[in-house]
């Protein structure tokens, strides 16, 4: 027991907290400077969302591990004796606030997602597409009434990964994956092993865009165990020609697309309105009147540039629009963040703790 207490004292040393705070300041500074060159998303991934930032072969702690160390360090405080004593209560409350904030950060990091919902006027949508993550979809289109989807998530889309599922009569081996690429037509038609679009096109890798969401990701893959359709194929985001095949008398479509998240409700765009700056083609403001349909009960909501719709943990911001034909299409930026309220609550708790402690110090000083 003595040993455990000794370790807790070492791990919970305030010095560790000071060093982690100083290191976080360094990371925030470097991250802010480099994001100008590598883009916001890449900087966030490199310096904050990863465990280590490798400088050559030297691993430096990134934001994630720094904050984990900070969390463990602060947690050790709660193993100390008499923390709920009147004199220590302020510090205990403040520690709780900081821990809650770090927990909120962890929740946001692991469970939040963001993307966009695109809806044509008069139509409904019940999903949003992630800006960054991709998924590989195998769609069985054989049924006249519905399409059956098998979705392989972003972590599975990597070189040498084999995508297989018992419901599919074929396997997919990923030969190459490009974060950003473009299709280029072949001068000579590809050999017999190249199938579909890969016969006439190949994917040329490009440097990643600064704005990560603008990347056109692509994969080169080999289809196995499908008999006549075995071969090498390509797929990229927004590929206009869908890769389709028939195996065991079933029709399939293969798609690489942005990761979709289905909502527990529907949004129907009733009317999209935009006001232009006089004499220009620049939008001054735009808004979407939508029906929020839940369990077949519609409710009208207006989403405008500064008034997002918040519902069941999702927030929909008016982000953009598309004009194609007489009807218009709205683009709503969508965020789901389980840790949204944590910063507010933890800041209030920390303020209460600090105020209590300061008041206590003031009264003590007055007594002396």
């Amino acid at each position, binding site marked *: 027991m003595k040993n455990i207490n000794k370790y807790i004292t070492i791990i919970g040393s305030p010095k560790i907290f000071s060093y982690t705070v100083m290191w976080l300041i360094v990371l925030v500074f470097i991250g802010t400077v480099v994001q100008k060159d590598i883009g916001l998303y890449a900087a966030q991934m490199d310096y904050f969302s990863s465990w280590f930032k490798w400088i050559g072969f030297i691993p430096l702690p990134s934001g994630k591990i720094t904050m984990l160390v900070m969390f463990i360090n602060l947690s050790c405080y709660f193993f100390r004796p008499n923390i709920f004593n009147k004199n220590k209560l302020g510090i205990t409350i403040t520690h709780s606030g900081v821990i809650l904030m770090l927990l909120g950060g962890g929740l946001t990091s692991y469970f939040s997602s963001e993307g966009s919902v695109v809806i044509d006027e008069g139509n409904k949508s019940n999903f949003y597409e992630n800006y960054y993550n991709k998924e590989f979809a195998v769609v069985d289109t054989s049924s006249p009434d519905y399409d059956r989807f098998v979705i392989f*998530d972003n972590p599975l889309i990597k070189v040498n990964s084999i995508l297989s599922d018992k419901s599919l009569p074929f396997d997919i081996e990923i030969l190459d994956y490009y974060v950003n690429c473009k299709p280029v037509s072949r001068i000579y038609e590809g050999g017999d092993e190249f199938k579909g679009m890969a016969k006439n096109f190949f994917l040329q890798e490009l440097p990643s865009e600064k704005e990560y969401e603008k990347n056109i990701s692509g994969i080169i893959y080999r289809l196995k165990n499908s008999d006549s359709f075995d071969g090498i194929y390509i797929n990229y985001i927004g590929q206009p020609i869908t890769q389709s095949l028939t195996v065991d008398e079933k029709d399939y479509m293969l798609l690489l697309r942005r990761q979709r998240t289905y909502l527990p409700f529907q949004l129907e765009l009733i009317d999209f309105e935009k006001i232009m700056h006089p004499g220009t083609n620049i939008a001054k403001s735009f808004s979407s009147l939508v029906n929020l349909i839940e369990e077949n009960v519609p409710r009208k909501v207006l989403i405008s540039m500064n008034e997002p719709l918040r519902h069941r943990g999702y927030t929909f911001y008016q982000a953009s629009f598309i*004009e194609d034909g007489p009807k218009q299409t709205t683009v709503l930026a969508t965020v789901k963040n389980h840790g949204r309220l944590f910063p507010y609550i933890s800041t209030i708790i920390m303020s209460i703790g600090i105020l209590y402690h300061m008041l206590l110090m003031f009264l003590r000083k007055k007594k002396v």
Partner: protein
Amino acid sequence: MKKLYIFVFILALSCNDDKHIKYYKIPKLKVVNKNQDFKIEDSQLSFTWNVPSNWVIGKESSMRLASYTIAYDNLFADVSVTNFSGDGGGVEQNVNRWRRQLNLEPQSIELIEKDIQNKKSDLGNYKFLKIINPTNEESAFLCSIITVKNSTIFVKLNATASGVDKLENQFLEFCSSFKF
């Protein structure tokens, strides 16, 4: 307190979600077949068309009757077919909307009419127009406006300026194939 912390720590470690394969099924969107008949808006009449062999069915959209994709050079052209009741906003409004999409100034109906060519299909005469912005050749349109009964069919091809030149004959062949 120690026990509580150890419990929370073990709970956090057990929260690893390894299920990276999802399954679901959703009702089919309207599927466009090459030989499908389409109802004219506000009418019992239906019409169809012939699709050039190198055109592929494009992205489905509820706004469009049909979409096609055409591969040319290293690029793809997008063709949309839409149908609206009445005049669908009229020639002047629609052409000027397309012009604005290409960052061109709107024109009067008299000037627009000068650029319009009249073509023929089994549905009747239709108006054909090519819109190119000489200062931005990355996007250009071939447009057809077909008036049938009390409704208007819009066909639009979006490609680069050189692309619309290359694909003009195929587009006209497609528009002329519209029939009852």
